[in-house]
């Protein structure tokens, strides 16, 4: 099911809020997770259950404070047959949710995935100053499409994002390549999505050519930008000497791991007893090279983290946003994960059916059976 929906009063964000309210009132959803402005004007995410509270919801907010897939893992870990929670997510967040579903960290049953186009977002830090008191801020950016991508506050992860349209969703709400003051693009990919769109007056039609072209050209320009960024990255990172230097500011705070949506372990290996050394052991390790950097295992942490989650990395870049010393993690992880996933012909978050590359050996096992 796909088509366009008429936008009321030249306000696409209010139109989407209206749909949220309708779904909550009709009981199609028991709650909905969406970006929202706090009283102080900061970018947050909230789970709304009362339709009257929705005035604070800002589904089209061009800022990202958290990858909401982490929140999905927090709320949908256990089966809950009676709840129906809508998750209003950006493309990278949806990709992470797909990975977490495959990793059995998010149960799909009680969730409806509502996606939205995203031409990119601002950093959450300092965002309230960027926005000021502009009540029409979100809509202005939607009208601008991707025109604000050169702003200094535009997130590094978003600068390199080639997926402005979600890949997996129950329903997607699109505005790229549309006239968002007049109409929004709706697409239901599953029965869950179709059920949600019941009773909504869509003008059914095929995806407009103009929209397809706009998405393609945005994706192409991002790919070109990514290639350039990776070229710059290689100049400062490639090889043992530079790699150590690249991470030399790292405080070993592990923030990047804590905010990462696909770093899903409840207790990180690096917080386990394996890394608890007594004083004698510390001295022994130090004697090997004459000195040890403290806190120890800083580079080991990053390299191991890459080995543990690169196959599922969705390149959202939230790791860099969380870094207190701004290590350039977004470009680094983009490069490393892109190469790693290519090795397996895999793309994180592309499909729920595509098996995780590290844990499948069906072809190999079948061959043994035949022999």
């Amino acid at each position, binding site marked *: 099911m796909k088509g366009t929906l008429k936008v009321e009063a030249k306000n696409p964000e209010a139109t989407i809020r209206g749909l949220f309210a309708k779904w909550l009132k009709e009981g199609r959803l028991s709650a909905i997770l969406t970006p929202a402005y706090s009283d102080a004007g900061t970018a947050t995410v909230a789970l709304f259950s009362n339709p009257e509270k929705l005035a604070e919801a800002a589904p089209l907010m061009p800022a990202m404070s958290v990858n909401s897939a982490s929140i999905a893992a927090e709320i949908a870990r256990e089966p809950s047959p009676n709840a129906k929670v809508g998750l209003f997510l950006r493309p990278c967040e949806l990709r992470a949710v797909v990975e977490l579903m495959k990793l059995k960290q998010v149960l799909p049953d009680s969730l409806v995935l509502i996606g939205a186009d995203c031409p990119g977002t601002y950093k959450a830090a300092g965002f309230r100053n960027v926005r000021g008191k502009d009540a029409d801020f979100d809509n202005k950016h939607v009208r601008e499409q991707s025109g604000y991508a050169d702003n200094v506050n535009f997130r590094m992860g978003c600068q390199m994002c080639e997926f402005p349209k979600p890949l997996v969703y129950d329903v997607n709400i699109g505005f790229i390549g549309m006239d968002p003051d007049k109409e929004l693009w709706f697409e239901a990919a599953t029965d869950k999505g179709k059920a949600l769109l019941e009773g909504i007056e869509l003008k059914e039609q095929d995806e407009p050519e103009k929209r397809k072209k706009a998405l393609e050209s945005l994706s192409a320009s991002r790919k070109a930008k990514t290639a350039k960024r990776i070229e710059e990255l*290689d100049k400062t*990172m490639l*090889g043992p000497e530079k790699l150590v230097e690249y991470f030399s500011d790292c405080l070993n705070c592990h923030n990047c791991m804590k905010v990462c949506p696909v770093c899903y372990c409840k207790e990180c290996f690096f917080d386990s007893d394996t890394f608890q050394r007594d004083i004698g052991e510390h001295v022994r390790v130090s004697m090997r090279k004459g000195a040890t950097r403290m806190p120890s295992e800083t580079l080991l942490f990053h*390299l191991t983290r890459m080995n543990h989650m690169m196959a599922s990395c969705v390149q959202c870049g939230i790791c860099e946003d969380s870094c207190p010393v701004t290590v350039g993690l977004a470009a680094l992880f983009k490069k490393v994960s892109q190469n790693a996933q290519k090795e397996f012909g895999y793309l994180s978050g592309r499909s729920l059916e595509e098996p995780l590359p590290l844990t499948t050996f069906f072809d*190999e096992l079948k061959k043994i059976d035949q022999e």
Partner: protein
Amino acid sequence: MTEAKQMADYEPKIVGFLCNWCTYAGADLAGTSRMQYPPNMLPIRVMCSGAVDSVYILRALLEGADGVFMGGCHPGDCHYVSGNYKARRRMVLFSSIIRSLGLDEDRVWLRWISAAEGRKFADTITEMTEHLRKKGPSPFKEKWEV
């Protein structure tokens, strides 16, 4: 130390992870058959090559090992059905990451050596030692800032 002197004094240090059921038994066979091979590898017996997380390889490399050797059962012969396939896939990922970072993937070897292949074990360790001798010491050997 001058570089030439460093090279002259250099003996490659290899950390080896040997699977209990195949490669470790292969090493045992090489020993009981009195086959000669260089003493540069420190063997660590593990229950399966699939049990060796990348962290152990990385830690060995960052703390100054010149190479890491991993030995497992031949594909199809794993005592735990699919452990060596896990190791193999993990290795593909590991090598790709190491390449992307501009590090040397050739310092980490994964080889299939069965319990009957004592000769192959001795030859492989000899080959790897010579390979690392030519390559020179690991860049992380003296680097304490990792």
